[in-house]
Protein backbone atom coordinates (compact mmCIF):
# COMPACT_ATOMS: atom_id res chain seq x y z
CA UNK A 1 0.00 0.00 0.00
CA UNK A 2 1.44 3.33 -1.05
CA UNK A 3 1.73 5.86 1.74
CA UNK A 4 -1.03 8.43 1.70
CA UNK A 5 -3.52 6.12 0.01
CA UNK A 6 -4.78 4.49 3.23
CA UNK A 7 -7.85 6.69 3.26
CA UNK A 8 -8.78 5.64 -0.28
CA UNK A 9 -8.38 1.96 0.50
CA UNK A 10 -10.54 2.51 3.53
CA UNK A 11 -13.30 4.15 1.49
CA UNK A 12 -13.23 1.46 -1.19
CA UNK A 13 -12.92 -1.61 0.97
CA UNK A 14 -16.64 -2.06 1.51
CA UNK A 15 -17.73 -1.58 -2.10
CA UNK A 16 -19.51 -4.66 -3.35
CA UNK A 17 -19.41 -6.46 -6.67
CA UNK A 18 -22.53 -5.76 -8.78
CA UNK A 19 -22.97 -9.41 -9.79
CA UNK A 20 -21.92 -10.96 -6.48
CA UNK A 21 -23.36 -8.36 -4.09
CA UNK A 22 -22.43 -10.34 -0.98
CA UNK A 23 -18.73 -9.99 -1.87
CA UNK A 24 -16.66 -6.86 -1.60
CA UNK A 25 -14.15 -5.85 -4.27
CA UNK A 26 -11.60 -6.49 -1.56
CA UNK A 27 -12.82 -10.09 -1.10
CA UNK A 28 -12.46 -10.60 -4.85
CA UNK A 29 -9.05 -8.97 -5.11
CA UNK A 30 -10.24 -6.75 -7.95
CA UNK A 31 -8.60 -3.54 -6.70
CA UNK A 32 -4.91 -4.07 -7.33
CA UNK A 33 -3.26 -0.77 -6.61
CA UNK A 34 -3.85 2.83 -5.63
CA UNK A 35 -1.09 5.26 -6.46
CA UNK A 36 -0.63 8.95 -6.46
CA UNK A 37 1.14 10.60 -9.38
CA UNK A 38 1.72 14.35 -9.76
CA UNK A 39 -1.87 15.42 -9.94
CA UNK A 40 -4.10 12.39 -9.63
CA UNK A 41 -4.89 9.25 -7.77
CA UNK A 42 -4.72 6.23 -10.03
CA UNK A 43 -6.81 3.21 -9.05
CA UNK A 44 -5.86 0.02 -10.88
CA UNK A 45 -8.43 -2.73 -11.14
CA UNK A 46 -8.08 -6.24 -12.55
CA UNK A 47 -11.26 -7.38 -14.35
CA UNK A 48 -12.25 -10.97 -13.55
CA UNK A 49 -13.12 -11.36 -17.24
CA UNK A 50 -12.20 -9.05 -20.10
CA UNK A 51 -15.80 -8.66 -21.19
CA UNK A 52 -17.23 -8.62 -17.68
CA UNK A 53 -20.20 -6.24 -17.85
CA UNK A 54 -19.81 -5.46 -14.15
CA UNK A 55 -16.55 -3.59 -14.81
CA UNK A 56 -18.12 -0.35 -15.97
CA UNK A 57 -20.43 -0.42 -12.93
CA UNK A 58 -17.43 -1.03 -10.66
CA UNK A 59 -15.59 1.91 -12.24
CA UNK A 60 -18.57 4.18 -11.62
CA UNK A 61 -18.92 2.97 -8.03
CA UNK A 62 -15.25 3.64 -7.30
CA UNK A 63 -15.44 7.10 -8.87
CA UNK A 64 -18.57 8.07 -6.98
CA UNK A 65 -17.28 6.80 -3.62
CA UNK A 66 -14.02 8.71 -3.99
CA UNK A 67 -15.87 11.80 -5.13
CA UNK A 68 -17.50 11.88 -1.71
CA UNK A 69 -14.08 12.55 -0.19
CA UNK A 70 -13.19 15.05 -2.90
CA UNK A 71 -11.06 12.83 -5.13
CA UNK A 72 -11.55 12.32 -8.87
CA UNK A 73 -9.46 9.27 -9.61
CA UNK A 74 -8.11 7.90 -12.86
CA UNK A 75 -9.24 4.30 -13.08
CA UNK A 76 -7.10 1.92 -15.08
CA UNK A 77 -7.67 -1.69 -16.04
CA UNK A 78 -4.82 -4.12 -15.75
CA UNK A 79 -4.60 -7.54 -17.41
CA UNK A 80 -1.08 -8.40 -16.34
CA UNK A 81 -0.85 -10.41 -14.25
CA UNK A 82 -4.32 -11.59 -15.19
CA UNK A 83 -6.88 -11.66 -12.39
CA UNK A 84 -6.82 -15.04 -10.71
CA UNK A 85 -9.41 -16.77 -8.56
CA UNK A 86 -6.54 -17.35 -6.13
CA UNK A 87 -6.87 -13.67 -5.24
CA UNK A 88 -10.26 -14.27 -3.64
CA UNK A 89 -9.78 -14.05 0.11
CA UNK A 90 -10.55 -16.86 2.54
CA UNK A 91 -13.38 -14.77 3.86
CA UNK A 92 -14.66 -14.29 0.32
CA UNK A 93 -14.66 -18.05 -0.29
CA UNK A 94 -16.59 -18.59 2.88
CA UNK A 95 -19.19 -15.99 1.96
CA UNK A 96 -19.51 -17.52 -1.49
CA UNK A 97 -20.24 -20.94 -0.08
CA UNK A 98 -22.77 -19.50 2.36
CA UNK A 99 -24.49 -17.88 -0.58
CA UNK A 100 -24.77 -21.20 -2.45
CA UNK A 101 -21.88 -20.81 -4.88
CA UNK A 102 -19.14 -23.39 -4.77
CA UNK A 103 -15.85 -21.47 -4.44
CA UNK A 104 -12.96 -22.02 -6.86
CA UNK A 105 -10.22 -24.55 -6.17
CA UNK A 106 -6.70 -23.28 -5.58
CA UNK A 107 -5.04 -22.84 -8.92
CA UNK A 108 -2.65 -25.50 -10.11
CA UNK A 109 -1.91 -27.41 -13.28
CA UNK A 110 -4.85 -29.71 -12.73
CA UNK A 111 -7.53 -27.24 -11.76
CA UNK A 112 -6.79 -24.48 -14.24
CA UNK A 113 -9.73 -23.95 -16.52
CA UNK A 114 -11.44 -26.71 -14.56
CA UNK A 115 -10.08 -29.13 -17.12
CA UNK A 116 -9.33 -32.04 -14.83
CA UNK A 117 -11.52 -31.03 -11.95
CA UNK A 118 -12.83 -34.03 -10.15
CA UNK A 119 -14.33 -32.94 -6.89
CA UNK A 120 -16.73 -30.07 -6.60
CA UNK A 121 -18.57 -29.83 -3.32
CA UNK A 122 -22.28 -29.08 -3.29
CA UNK A 123 -22.70 -25.86 -1.31
CA UNK A 124 -26.17 -26.97 -0.18
CA UNK A 125 -25.61 -30.46 1.24
CA UNK A 126 -21.77 -30.72 1.11
CA UNK A 127 -21.88 -33.87 -1.02
CA UNK A 128 -19.05 -34.43 -3.48
CA UNK A 129 -21.31 -36.44 -5.78
CA UNK A 130 -21.82 -33.64 -8.27
CA UNK A 131 -21.62 -33.23 -12.02
CA UNK A 132 -20.99 -30.39 -14.43
CA UNK A 133 -24.02 -29.39 -16.46
CA UNK A 134 -22.54 -26.53 -18.44
CA UNK A 135 -19.23 -24.75 -18.90
CA UNK A 136 -21.06 -21.50 -18.28
CA UNK A 137 -23.46 -20.56 -15.52
CA UNK A 138 -25.26 -17.31 -14.88
CA UNK A 139 -22.09 -15.34 -15.61
CA UNK A 140 -18.86 -16.03 -17.49
CA UNK A 141 -16.95 -16.56 -14.25
CA UNK A 142 -19.12 -19.47 -13.14
CA UNK A 143 -19.98 -22.91 -14.49
CA UNK A 144 -23.16 -24.78 -13.75
CA UNK A 145 -23.25 -27.97 -11.67
CA UNK A 146 -25.84 -30.21 -10.12
CA UNK A 147 -25.74 -32.30 -7.00
CA UNK A 148 -26.54 -35.98 -7.47
CA UNK A 149 -27.56 -36.33 -3.83
CA UNK A 150 -29.75 -33.34 -3.01
CA UNK A 151 -30.52 -32.78 -6.75
CA UNK A 152 -30.05 -29.04 -6.45
CA UNK A 153 -28.33 -27.14 -9.27
CA UNK A 154 -25.60 -24.71 -8.22
CA UNK A 155 -22.98 -22.36 -9.62
CA UNK A 156 -19.30 -23.15 -9.28
CA UNK A 157 -16.87 -20.27 -9.45
CA UNK A 158 -14.28 -21.23 -12.06
CA UNK A 159 -10.63 -21.61 -11.25
CA UNK A 160 -8.73 -19.14 -13.40
Amino acid at each position, binding site marked *: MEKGTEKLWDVLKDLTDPELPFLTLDDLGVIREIKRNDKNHVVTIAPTY*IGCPAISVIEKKIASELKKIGISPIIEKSFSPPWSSDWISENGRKKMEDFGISPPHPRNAETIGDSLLKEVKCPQCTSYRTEKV*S*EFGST*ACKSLYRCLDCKEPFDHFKCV
Partner: protein
Amino acid sequence: MKNNSADMVFEGLLRIADDNLILGHRTSEWCGHAPTLEEDLALPNIALDLIGHAQTLYCLACEIDSRYKNEDQLAFLRLEHEYKNLLLVEQENGDFGNTVLRLFYFSTFMKYFWERVKIKCCFKKLKEFSEKAFLETSYHSKYASQWVVTLGDGTDESNLKMSNAIANLEPFLGELFNNDDFTEMCSQNDFLPEPRSIFDSWKNEVEAILQKGNLDFPAIILKKRGGRKGEHSEAFGYLLSDLQYMQRAYPNSSW
Protein backbone atom coordinates in the same frame (compact mmCIF):
# COMPACT_ATOMS: atom_id res chain seq x y z
CA MET B 1 5.75 5.89 -31.58
CA LYS B 2 6.68 6.90 -35.12
CA ASN B 3 3.82 7.63 -37.48
CA ASN B 4 4.22 4.59 -39.66
CA SER B 5 4.48 2.27 -36.70
CA ALA B 6 1.37 3.89 -35.19
CA ASP B 7 -0.46 3.08 -38.44
CA MET B 8 0.74 -0.48 -38.21
CA VAL B 9 -0.43 -0.91 -34.62
CA PHE B 10 -3.80 0.69 -35.39
CA GLU B 11 -4.45 -1.57 -38.37
CA GLY B 12 -3.24 -4.65 -36.50
CA LEU B 13 -5.51 -3.95 -33.54
CA LEU B 14 -8.42 -3.32 -35.87
CA ARG B 15 -8.05 -6.67 -37.60
CA ILE B 16 -8.17 -8.63 -34.35
CA ALA B 17 -10.87 -6.44 -32.82
CA ASP B 18 -13.11 -6.73 -35.88
CA ASP B 19 -12.77 -10.53 -35.91
CA ASN B 20 -13.84 -10.63 -32.28
CA LEU B 21 -16.66 -8.12 -32.63
CA ILE B 22 -18.20 -9.80 -35.65
CA LEU B 23 -17.94 -13.32 -34.30
CA GLY B 24 -19.26 -11.99 -30.98
CA HIS B 25 -22.25 -10.53 -32.78
CA ARG B 26 -22.91 -13.73 -34.69
CA THR B 27 -22.62 -15.77 -31.51
CA SER B 28 -25.00 -13.43 -29.69
CA GLU B 29 -27.65 -14.19 -32.33
CA TRP B 30 -28.10 -17.52 -30.54
CA CYS B 31 -29.41 -15.81 -27.43
CA GLY B 32 -32.86 -17.27 -26.84
CA HIS B 33 -32.48 -19.79 -29.69
CA ALA B 34 -29.93 -22.33 -28.46
CA PRO B 35 -30.96 -26.00 -28.37
CA THR B 36 -30.87 -26.20 -24.56
CA LEU B 37 -30.94 -23.72 -21.70
CA GLU B 38 -27.32 -24.50 -20.81
CA GLU B 39 -26.14 -23.64 -24.31
CA ASP B 40 -28.32 -20.58 -24.21
CA LEU B 41 -26.21 -19.45 -21.26
CA ALA B 42 -22.93 -20.57 -22.74
CA LEU B 43 -23.13 -18.96 -26.18
CA PRO B 44 -24.10 -15.45 -25.04
CA ASN B 45 -21.40 -15.66 -22.36
CA ILE B 46 -18.86 -16.44 -25.05
CA ALA B 47 -20.29 -13.64 -27.18
CA LEU B 48 -19.78 -11.31 -24.24
CA ASP B 49 -16.15 -12.39 -23.94
CA LEU B 50 -15.55 -11.87 -27.66
CA ILE B 51 -17.18 -8.44 -27.66
CA GLY B 52 -15.22 -7.61 -24.49
CA HIS B 53 -11.99 -8.47 -26.29
CA ALA B 54 -13.05 -6.27 -29.20
CA GLN B 55 -13.94 -3.40 -26.88
CA THR B 56 -10.56 -3.43 -25.15
CA LEU B 57 -8.71 -3.60 -28.46
CA TYR B 58 -10.78 -0.75 -29.94
CA CYS B 59 -9.95 1.34 -26.86
CA LEU B 60 -6.25 0.74 -27.46
CA ALA B 61 -6.73 1.68 -31.12
CA CYS B 62 -8.47 4.93 -30.12
CA GLU B 63 -5.47 5.87 -27.98
CA ILE B 64 -3.36 5.64 -31.12
CA ASP B 65 -5.58 7.32 -33.68
CA SER B 66 -7.25 10.49 -32.50
CA ARG B 67 -9.76 10.44 -35.37
CA TYR B 68 -11.70 8.01 -33.25
CA LYS B 69 -12.86 9.30 -29.91
CA ASN B 70 -14.20 6.09 -28.42
CA GLU B 71 -14.67 2.41 -29.04
CA ASP B 72 -18.32 2.80 -30.06
CA GLN B 73 -17.28 4.90 -33.01
CA LEU B 74 -15.07 2.08 -34.25
CA ALA B 75 -17.57 -0.66 -33.52
CA PHE B 76 -20.71 0.98 -34.80
CA LEU B 77 -20.01 3.92 -37.06
CA ARG B 78 -17.67 2.69 -39.74
CA LEU B 79 -18.70 1.72 -43.24
CA GLU B 80 -18.64 -1.82 -44.53
CA HIS B 81 -15.29 -1.58 -46.33
CA GLU B 82 -13.62 -0.17 -43.22
CA TYR B 83 -14.09 -3.43 -41.29
CA LYS B 84 -11.10 -5.76 -41.62
CA ASN B 85 -12.48 -9.01 -40.22
CA LEU B 86 -12.08 -12.43 -41.80
CA LEU B 87 -14.85 -13.71 -44.07
CA LEU B 88 -15.04 -16.78 -41.81
CA VAL B 89 -16.50 -14.88 -38.87
CA GLU B 90 -19.15 -12.95 -40.78
CA GLN B 91 -20.85 -15.97 -42.39
CA GLU B 92 -24.30 -16.81 -41.14
CA ASN B 93 -24.40 -19.14 -38.15
CA GLY B 94 -26.06 -22.06 -39.88
CA ASP B 95 -27.01 -24.81 -37.47
CA PHE B 96 -25.61 -25.32 -33.98
CA GLY B 97 -22.92 -27.70 -35.29
CA ASN B 98 -21.72 -25.15 -37.82
CA THR B 99 -21.64 -22.49 -35.09
CA VAL B 100 -19.56 -24.52 -32.64
CA LEU B 101 -17.21 -25.74 -35.36
CA ARG B 102 -16.47 -22.17 -36.43
CA LEU B 103 -15.99 -21.18 -32.80
CA PHE B 104 -13.60 -24.11 -32.38
CA TYR B 105 -11.57 -23.12 -35.46
CA PHE B 106 -11.40 -19.47 -34.48
CA SER B 107 -10.80 -19.77 -30.74
CA THR B 108 -8.11 -22.42 -31.24
CA PHE B 109 -6.41 -20.07 -33.71
CA MET B 110 -6.67 -17.16 -31.26
CA LYS B 111 -5.40 -19.26 -28.39
CA TYR B 112 -2.12 -19.88 -30.22
CA PHE B 113 -2.10 -16.33 -31.51
CA TRP B 114 -2.27 -14.87 -27.98
CA GLU B 115 0.23 -17.42 -26.75
CA ARG B 116 2.73 -16.00 -29.21
CA VAL B 117 1.87 -12.38 -28.41
CA LYS B 118 2.47 -13.20 -24.75
CA ILE B 119 6.02 -14.25 -25.59
CA LYS B 120 6.87 -11.45 -27.98
CA CYS B 121 5.13 -8.17 -28.74
CA CYS B 122 6.61 -4.68 -28.98
CA PHE B 123 3.31 -3.09 -27.90
CA LYS B 124 3.33 -3.44 -24.14
CA LYS B 125 -0.39 -2.99 -23.55
CA LEU B 126 -1.28 -5.71 -26.04
CA LYS B 127 1.30 -8.02 -24.54
CA GLU B 128 -0.32 -7.54 -21.14
CA PHE B 129 -3.80 -8.04 -22.57
CA SER B 130 -2.73 -11.30 -24.22
CA GLU B 131 -2.15 -12.97 -20.85
CA LYS B 132 -5.81 -12.70 -20.01
CA ALA B 133 -7.07 -13.22 -23.57
CA PHE B 134 -5.07 -16.45 -23.82
CA LEU B 135 -6.88 -17.92 -20.82
CA GLU B 136 -10.32 -16.99 -22.12
CA THR B 137 -9.80 -18.18 -25.70
CA SER B 138 -8.41 -21.48 -24.34
CA TYR B 139 -11.67 -21.94 -22.49
CA HIS B 140 -13.74 -21.18 -25.59
CA SER B 141 -11.69 -23.62 -27.62
CA LYS B 142 -12.22 -26.32 -25.03
CA TYR B 143 -15.96 -25.72 -24.82
CA ALA B 144 -16.36 -25.83 -28.61
CA SER B 145 -14.10 -28.87 -29.02
CA GLN B 146 -16.31 -30.89 -26.68
CA TRP B 147 -19.32 -30.21 -28.88
CA VAL B 148 -17.40 -31.04 -32.05
CA VAL B 149 -16.53 -34.44 -30.59
CA THR B 150 -20.00 -35.04 -29.12
CA LEU B 151 -21.80 -34.23 -32.36
CA GLY B 152 -19.24 -35.84 -34.66
CA ASP B 153 -19.23 -39.01 -32.60
CA GLY B 154 -22.99 -38.93 -32.02
CA THR B 155 -25.66 -40.23 -34.36
CA ASP B 156 -25.43 -40.65 -38.13
CA GLU B 157 -27.41 -37.48 -38.50
CA SER B 158 -25.27 -35.38 -36.16
CA ASN B 159 -22.12 -36.72 -37.83
CA LEU B 160 -23.52 -35.80 -41.22
CA LYS B 161 -24.35 -32.30 -40.04
CA MET B 162 -20.81 -31.84 -38.72
CA SER B 163 -19.36 -33.13 -42.00
CA ASN B 164 -21.52 -30.61 -43.81
CA ALA B 165 -20.28 -27.88 -41.47
CA ILE B 166 -16.67 -28.83 -42.26
CA ALA B 167 -17.40 -28.57 -45.99
CA ASN B 168 -19.31 -25.34 -45.49
CA LEU B 169 -16.49 -23.57 -43.60
CA GLU B 170 -13.63 -25.01 -45.64
CA PRO B 171 -13.44 -22.23 -48.26
CA PHE B 172 -12.88 -19.65 -45.52
CA LEU B 173 -10.00 -21.32 -43.68
CA GLY B 174 -7.30 -20.28 -46.14
CA GLU B 175 -7.78 -16.63 -45.23
CA LEU B 176 -7.24 -17.42 -41.55
CA PHE B 177 -3.67 -18.49 -42.27
CA ASN B 178 -2.91 -16.12 -45.10
CA ASN B 179 0.18 -13.96 -44.72
CA ASP B 180 0.19 -10.65 -46.57
CA ASP B 181 2.56 -7.67 -46.74
CA PHE B 182 0.98 -6.26 -43.64
CA THR B 183 1.29 -9.40 -41.51
CA GLU B 184 4.91 -9.70 -42.63
CA MET B 185 5.60 -6.15 -41.51
CA CYS B 186 3.93 -6.82 -38.15
CA SER B 187 6.05 -9.89 -37.65
CA GLN B 188 9.30 -8.18 -38.68
CA ASN B 189 8.59 -5.47 -36.11
CA ASP B 190 7.84 -8.02 -33.37
CA PHE B 191 4.29 -6.72 -33.13
CA LEU B 192 2.10 -9.68 -34.15
CA PRO B 193 2.81 -13.26 -35.20
CA GLU B 194 2.28 -14.23 -38.84
CA PRO B 195 -0.94 -16.19 -39.31
CA ARG B 196 0.82 -19.00 -41.14
CA SER B 197 3.19 -19.52 -38.22
CA ILE B 198 0.19 -20.67 -36.16
CA PHE B 199 -0.89 -23.32 -38.64
CA ASP B 200 1.07 -26.30 -37.31
CA SER B 201 -0.08 -25.94 -33.71
CA TRP B 202 -3.64 -25.32 -34.89
CA LYS B 203 -3.63 -28.28 -37.24
CA ASN B 204 -2.33 -30.68 -34.60
CA GLU B 205 -5.07 -29.76 -32.20
CA VAL B 206 -7.92 -29.48 -34.70
CA GLU B 207 -7.00 -32.71 -36.46
CA ALA B 208 -6.95 -34.63 -33.15
CA ILE B 209 -10.37 -33.32 -32.15
CA LEU B 210 -11.91 -34.01 -35.57
CA GLN B 211 -10.48 -37.51 -35.47
CA LYS B 212 -12.12 -38.11 -32.09
CA GLY B 213 -15.38 -37.06 -33.67
CA ASN B 214 -14.88 -39.35 -36.71
CA LEU B 215 -14.57 -36.32 -38.93
CA ASP B 216 -12.16 -35.53 -41.75
CA PHE B 217 -9.70 -32.68 -41.53
CA PRO B 218 -10.51 -30.13 -44.26
CA ALA B 219 -8.24 -29.04 -47.08
CA ILE B 220 -6.74 -25.66 -46.26
CA ILE B 221 -6.44 -23.84 -49.56
CA LEU B 222 -6.77 -20.12 -50.09
CA LYS B 223 -10.14 -19.92 -51.78
CA LYS B 224 -12.18 -17.02 -50.51
CA ARG B 225 -10.55 -13.93 -49.14
CA GLY B 226 -11.01 -10.18 -49.02
CA GLY B 227 -12.05 -9.43 -45.45
CA ARG B 228 -8.62 -8.08 -44.50
CA LYS B 229 -8.95 -5.55 -47.35
CA GLY B 230 -12.50 -4.64 -46.44
CA GLU B 231 -14.06 -6.70 -49.24
CA HIS B 232 -16.87 -8.59 -47.59
CA SER B 233 -19.48 -11.15 -48.49
CA GLU B 234 -23.19 -10.50 -48.90
CA ALA B 235 -24.01 -11.70 -45.38
CA PHE B 236 -21.94 -8.87 -43.90
CA GLY B 237 -24.24 -6.07 -45.04
CA TYR B 238 -27.20 -7.62 -43.27
CA LEU B 239 -25.10 -8.20 -40.18
CA LEU B 240 -23.95 -4.57 -40.06
CA SER B 241 -27.43 -3.16 -40.50
CA ASP B 242 -28.44 -5.10 -37.42
CA LEU B 243 -25.26 -4.40 -35.43
CA GLN B 244 -25.26 -0.67 -36.17
CA TYR B 245 -28.97 -0.02 -35.94
CA MET B 246 -29.06 1.62 -32.50
CA GLN B 247 -26.11 3.96 -33.08
CA ARG B 248 -27.41 4.94 -36.51
CA ALA B 249 -30.95 5.56 -35.28
CA TYR B 250 -29.90 7.27 -32.03
CA PRO B 251 -26.38 8.68 -32.55
CA ASN B 252 -24.20 8.70 -29.43
CA SER B 253 -26.79 6.89 -27.38
CA SER B 254 -25.37 5.04 -24.40
CA TRP B 255 -26.57 2.73 -21.66
